[in-house]
């Protein structure tokens, strides 16, 4: 039996997906440093490459209704190998979550409150996420509409407010960078905003009806990708070449908003939107990690694990990197390598094996 009793609908899955991807809007800065003015095409290429893989998650979840990733792994790869793969996944969840928590902290100490200790933001933020996770997936899902709307509002309104400062010749020349850089950019994009949606394999088991899962996943993905694209286009058009030098290109672009000297200093808009979006993303990550760990150890509920795991995440986030420089280096170079098999290889492979072995019908009796 799955550990989560809550049920979500297919439509809510769409909002979850879109909100989750939008939460990575801050992280496209990792790509911008490498792909400069060609970021927009890198995002499109990453979307095209990762769409079939992400849709395969939905197909997999449809094939194993009511089951989460850990259970699927157990069933497809057997008890022993399945556990090892699940532990690998849990490692990935935990690392990505702590990096995301760290992103929020860095955002705050760089742009909003410089004098406050770093650890304070990490704790407050993670405690809020833990609170949301204890309430369960249904509660998180219910706020996903609101979060998506706030995110889209911030993205679209800043785009409109900056239209007068945009110079679309910044996108020229179209093909300039060496292919290897584009390739690295595509790899980062398909890993970080899109590939992280592998967490939904832990959530899709809660779907009450799974017939529209694939369609809704696809549209959720499109909405999320569209908002990333708007952000990338806005930053390139407004900042031009300088977008590669700022710590956060989005923030700097929004600081340029100046409508009749009245509408200025709109940083708060992006600050609020990013905090909410990151909260949503981190909550989903924390939820997924907690459920995965509890499932792995066969616990009856996951609530007791929420706070201890959240505490571990804070400690990892606070200690693993010395500075944002470290952070960017590791994420750009190592992070996308160790997560590649989890995102691109194992789920499609599970699907293939399940097809060949005729799962899950074969073992349904054994499972309960």
């Amino acid at each position, binding site marked *: 039996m799955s550990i989560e009793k809550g049920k979500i609908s297919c439509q809510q899955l769409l909002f979850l997906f879109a909100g989750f991807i939008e939460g990575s809007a801050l992280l496209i800065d990792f790509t911008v440093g490498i792909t400069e003015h060609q970021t927009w095409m890198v995002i499109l290429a990453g979307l095209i490459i990762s769409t079939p893989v992400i849709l395969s998650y939905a197909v997999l979840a449809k094939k194993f209704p009511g089951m989460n990733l850990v259970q699927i792994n157990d069933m497809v790869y057997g008890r022993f190998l399945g556990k090892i793969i699940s532990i690998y996944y849990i490692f990935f969840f935990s690392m990505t979550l702590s990096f995301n928590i760290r992103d929020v902290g860095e955002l705050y100490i760089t742009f909003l409150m410089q004098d406050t200790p770093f650890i304070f933001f990490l704790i407050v933020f993670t405690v809020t996420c833990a609170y949301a996770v204890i309430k369960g997936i249904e509660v998180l899902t219910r706020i996903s509409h609101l979060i998506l709307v706030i995110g889209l509002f911030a993205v679209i309104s800043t785009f409109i407010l900056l239209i007068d400062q945009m110079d679309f010749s910044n996108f*020229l020349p179209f093909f300039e960078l060496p292919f290897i850089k584009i390739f690295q950019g595509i790899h980062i994009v398909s890993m970080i905003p899109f590939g992280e949606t592998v967490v939904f394999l832990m959530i899709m088991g809660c779907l009450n009806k799974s017939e529209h899962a694939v369609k809704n996943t696809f549209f959720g993905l499109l909405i999320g990708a569209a908002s990333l694209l708007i952000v990338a286009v806005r930053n390139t058009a407004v900042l031009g070449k*300088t977008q590669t030098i700022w710590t956060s290109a989005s923030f700097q672009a929004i600081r340029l908003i100046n409508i009749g000297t009245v509408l200025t200093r709109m940083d708060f808009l992006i600050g609020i939107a990013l905090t909410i979006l990151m909260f949503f993303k981190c909550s989903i990550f924390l939820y997924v990690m907690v459920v995965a760990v509890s499932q792995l150890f066969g616990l009856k509920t996951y609530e007791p694990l929420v706070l201890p795991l959240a505490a571990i995440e804070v400690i990892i986030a606070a200690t693993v990197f010395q500075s944002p420089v470290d952070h960017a280096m590791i994420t750009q170079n190592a992070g996308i390598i160790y997560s590649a098999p989890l995102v691109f290889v194992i789920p499609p492979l599970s699907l293939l094996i399940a097809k060949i072995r005729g799962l899950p019908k074969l073992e349904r009796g054994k499972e309960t």
Partner: protein
Amino acid sequence: MGKKMNISIIKSILCFFLVFALSGCLGAREINDLEIVIGMGVDKDENAGNILLTAQVVKENAVGGASGNGGGGDDEAYWNVSSKGESIFDAVRQMTHKTGNRLFISHNQAVIFGNDVAKEGLQEYIDFFLRAHEMRPAALILVAEDRASDVLDAKPETEKFPAMNIAKLVKTYGFTSHLYKVNMKDFALWLMSDTTAPLAPLLTIIQNGENKEIYVSGMAAFKNGKMVGKLNHDESRGLLWVLGEVRSGVIIVPSPNETGKAVLEILKAKSKVTPEIKDGKIVMHIKIKEESSLSEQSTTENLADDKAFEKIQKSSAEVIRQEIMAAFDKSREFNADIFGFGEMLHKKYSNEWKTLKDNWDEIYPTIELNIDVESKIIKTDLLKKPAAPKEGEK
């Protein structure tokens, strides 16, 4: 029941303690502790290697207190603090020995660089202004003809603060299009380019009896971050024609029968620049469309008819062409690509650009301009004819 009570007691105790933790005193800076900086000037110090930073700080009692006793009298509303340091940030922190508080530079309107600093190169000085989190990328950047601290000292007549006045002078450049507003982001963009020469408005002080007046005398052109020359008003407008940034301004042409002048006001201007590489030669096709109104004439001849219009349009197109050529000749003189022709080529001919980029300095003076100006007079304002006897018509 008892358990529920316990939990609610724990919750209320927790809330009570949170009151102390969440009051937000950490890093608080009250308004009377802020040294609000509205302008900064950077000069070289007599000691080689040191810089002299001048910050214009608002005196909050002079601004907020529109008090009963005549609004503060002769008291200046600002305070120019200066300090020395080995770098900008060093000087900013050294300044706390005089102010007692950290400078608050969120509201900084303009950063002015002295002539000596600009000649030595802005690359090393601009980093702080881009990196500091309180600085806005929209803050203006300017160059003083002499020393920046003198510019910040010149008290304006209508504005309270010299820095605000300077910002106003630059922001309203559209009336004449004799200069161009440059902010931190623009300057950084130019500095990052391989070839484009950065620009900044140039401030001059005019001694008018007792008073000093600030005057924008044109633009300063940079190369590799170092100031290499100046553009006067006409040359600056020649540059703006090409960049498509001309908002308005005045064009004076002789009247068709050479008895006086026709004065046109620019209403609208558009430009399109298409680079072309033809047989190894670089030609820039510049197409300018300009619309203007006849705003003044100093002749009794009636200029508001087709034939006269045609002649005036022709000569105003010639004026525009000359302004562009003047700017281009000037830029050739100090071999700085102020128009950004290099970037335009880069965008269109990205393959050829790789070889062009390395010897751009030799190539730039050999560029040919193909200027095509279309000038139109679209209105004559309130008059159809000049107030003159009819004899002009024959």
